[in-house]
């Protein structure tokens, strides 16, 4: 029996010890009429040989196209060492470090992670992950309500250039507690928050302003001005940031005069493969004064009976297993494995490596934009500083062009027409350090052909 070690003798002896005539008898408290019949809809079991064959075939179907999609998930280099270590059984097959003494490896890694994330974002404390970037934003909003005692409105200002999926997750999640997320428009020329439109909210009770940096279009906001404006209104600032970008960009803790209040983001760029969207991890950092309102696990350094340094989960009174209905969140299982991957990634890359990744990605994207906008019928959408993404406009509907490119093994970017119909035929493109000059040339060449063919047709 796959995965089950019992021999017939074992079963006999065990049933004898129990005093039951059969395994079947152990289910005698389940009402007979409820018992399941054959699970006809489940296929027969496969051996590892067979599943291996099937999965290799499925993988082959998906292929390995050349991708220029970003939009919240980024193809960065992952050192081989990262996954060689996190798939070690001691990491991969352990659970939440409830027994601290038997989990010092996991606990120390989390403490190291907290240190790195706090520093990267310029804040004081980090939790030990949330599910992903989108759910982290939702949790940040709920936390802001708890932490910001003076604001009673449950009202959040969320610029339209915050990742559209994140906005939806925030609504789907925090909307249940009547939090409201009001949209703030972006400037058509720069893709940045429209400060004039924002200014109209002056004087209102706003729980927090959300600022994504770089924003969904890859453009850089004037974070100092936005932060100071929000604080002047008595609103919190929730920063949504790309961790890679923080090697180059001012950390949220230094935005404006007082810095952001809560920082969240998607941790995927830090050593986590794209993998169709997950598992990734959401990170969250804040100032020490808000730590008791923070959701998720937190690890602290302490000492043992002999005075030796050690690590343990702490501030558990915030959590559901203690505080139940009054907990800061319902989160229990988080994204530990990915947190460990990110910690190893950051250790291997170090400050210099992360800086180079960020700078290279930015440089490649500039090359990409130059190459694409040199193609007839393509122009750039927004002016201004950006990080490693950019929006380009085509002279015909994006969907067909993307299909054409995909047929030639190129994933040309993210079609913005669903979320931003006002932009017309707009495409969000991205290049990281993984894209070479040849890749970019191939894209530009193929796009030229595709557009020419479309024009001819």
């Amino acid at each position, binding site marked *: 029996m*796959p995965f089950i*070690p019992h021999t017939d003798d074992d079963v006999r002896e065990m049933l004898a010890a*129990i005093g039951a005539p059969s395994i079947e008898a152990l289910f005698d408290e389940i009402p007979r009429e409820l018992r*399941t019949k054959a*699970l006809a809809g*489940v*296929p027969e079991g496969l051996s590892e040989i067979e*599943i291996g064959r099937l999965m290799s075939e499925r*993988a082959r179907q*998906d292929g390995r196209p050349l*991708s220029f*999609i970003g939009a919240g998930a980024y193809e960065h*280099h992952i050192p081989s*060492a990262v996954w060689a*270590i996190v798939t070690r059984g001691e990491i*991969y097959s*352990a659970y*939440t470090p*409830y027994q601290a003494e038997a989990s*010092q490896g996991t606990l120390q890694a989390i*403490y*190291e992670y907290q240190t790195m994330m*706090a*520093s990267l974002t310029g804040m*004081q404390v980090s939790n030990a*992950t949330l599910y*992903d970037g*989108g759910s982290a934003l939702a949790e940040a909003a709920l936390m802001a309500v708890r932490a910001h005692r003076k604001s009673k409105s449950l009202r959040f200002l969320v610029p339209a250039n915050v990742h559209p999926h994140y906005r*939806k*997750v925030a609504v*789907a999640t925090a909307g249940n507690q009547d939090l409201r997320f009001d949209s703030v428009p972006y400037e058509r020329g720069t893709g940045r928050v429209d400060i004039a439109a924002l200014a109209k909210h002056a004087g209102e009770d706003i729980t927090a302003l959300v600022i994504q940096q770089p924003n969904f279009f890859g453009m*850089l906001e004037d974070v100092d001005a936005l932060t100071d404006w929000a604080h002047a209104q008595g609103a919190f600032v929730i920063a949504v940031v790309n961790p890679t970008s923080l090697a*180059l960009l*001012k*950390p949220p803790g230094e935005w404006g005069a007082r810095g952001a209040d809560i920082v969240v983001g*998607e941790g995927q760029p830090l050593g986590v493969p*794209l993998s*169709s969207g997950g598992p990734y991890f959401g990170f969250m950092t804040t100032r020490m004064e808000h730590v008791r309102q923070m959701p998720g696990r937190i690890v602290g350094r*302490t000492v043992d*009976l002999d005075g*030796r340094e050690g690590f343990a989960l702490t501030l558990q009174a915030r959590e*559901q*297993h203690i505080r139940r*209905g009054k*907990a800061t969140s*319902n989160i229990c*299982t*988080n*994204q*530990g*494995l*990915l947190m460990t991957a990110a910690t190893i990634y*950051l250790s*291997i890359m*170090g400050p210099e490596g992360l*800086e*180079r990744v960020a700078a290279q990605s930015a440089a490649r994207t500039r090359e990409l934009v130059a190459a694409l906008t040199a193609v007839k019928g393509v122009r750039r959408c927004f002016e201004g500083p950006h990080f490693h993404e950019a929006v380009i406009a085509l002279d015909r509907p994006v969907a067909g062009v993307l*299909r054409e490119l995909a047929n030639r093994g190129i*994933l040309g970017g*993210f079609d913005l027409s669903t979320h931003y119909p006002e932009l017309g035929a707009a495409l969000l493109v991205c290049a990281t350090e993984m894209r070479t000059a040849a890749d970019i040339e191939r894209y530009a060449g193929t796009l030229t052909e595709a557009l020419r063919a479309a024009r001819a047709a």
Partner: protein
Amino acid sequence: MPHRREKLIFEYSRTGRGASGQWPAKVAPPADIPAGLRRRSRPLLPEVSELEAVRHYTRLSQLNFSIDTHFYPLGSCTMKYNPKACNQYAMLPEFTARHPLGPESHGQGFLACMHELQEMLKEVTGMRGVSLTPMAGAHGEFAGVAMIRAYHRARGDLARNEIIVPEAAHGTNPATATMCGCVVREIPVLADGDVDVEALKAAVGPNTAGIMLTNPSTLGVFERRIREVAEIVHAAGGLLYYDGANLNAILGKVRPGDMGFDVIHVNLHKTFSTPHGGGGPGSGAVGVSERLLPFLPIPIVGREGDRYRWLGEQDLPQSIGRLSAFMGNAGVLLRAYVYMRMLGREGMGRVGDYATLNANYLLARLTQAGFDAAYPKRRASHEFIITAKRQAKDHNVTAMDIAKRLLDYGFHAPTTYFPLLVPECLLIEPTETESKEALDGFIDAMVKIRQEAEADPQLLKGAPHTLPVRRLDDVRAARQLDLAWRPEATA
């Protein structure tokens, strides 16, 4: 393990050191980024060689207990063997490289796996529709309660905002209800472990949105009057939520859908053996009955002929929406898919069978050895509770002391102090992948510990003695918060 401290990674760091083979070529940061938006000082990331990083994290890993190294009977967590094949095939280069927003034309292989996974989950749970997007059990609970609310609202039944939970419920249940904007009503559990049906009857009413139940419950017993419970809640206009954390106990034996549940989540990282990863990732796929189908969270994978495609807002306009930026923990879902295909039809029932056999054997042997079962008259499900109330009274030895001493014997401790209503409780879940000899080893250790509790209680109070650290000071951890390393903080 030696009592040798593994330094913090930061203590290995030296300015100018680094795994430079991992770095792309140096280029200047783009000139178009204004100075005011730039970072001024470097973040506190370690500067270490690749070997130092590898050695450090390899050594750290060795400080952990894990399924791959130890019997890990942590109740409610189903710490069963995670087959290596699941990881191997989920990490095929094409799968790890696939962008979540990649076109369906380059995702038919992945989408086929997801669609089949949805279908298999429907079948084993007896539900009509499944969404794979929730990223852990609690996230699935959230989706479920949100769907219950959406259902009532869609019917104009706006007053229904109470969620009933038995006092034995996992903390995520009440926390979820609150997070969903509901009011929690706890109802008691009887001495035999079943829900107090009279109290339930008294609790239901026009405000009842629904009830959240685990079955078997976190007390390790099957809720026998489940049909009656379902009728009472349904009659009152509420819906039933099934917390699938304990599905392992009844896999292939009885289906939540057949018990009358309207919505469920399944902890794929428990029943379907995806890795717990030192705290995650999990996956909390949700299943619903007919009437909740329109509310499922998106995206879902649909099938048209032999093509698969994403279903989104246009397809499910009443959906509670999006709970993750992309598609939940896709890589976890792939692992669960591989596991379910390997188990297959006949393997599902075996999981329930042997998980239950192991739990009942362990329970029988421990009670024969003089330990007290919390529910001595009941069958164990896949787990059961031992209470150390007597040891606490007689020898001042707590469940925690026993747990810590078990570590010295090379066993991970069971879950302690949960569920809260059983004093000094140890919730023990052996899982079906452990051998009789492993269980016997655990029993031997428990017997020795009981003897030690009588002969030398201080031995237990001081435990563990053989681990990298001795018992840690939790109070100090919470009082003198040290949550991040600072260069000055260590000599």
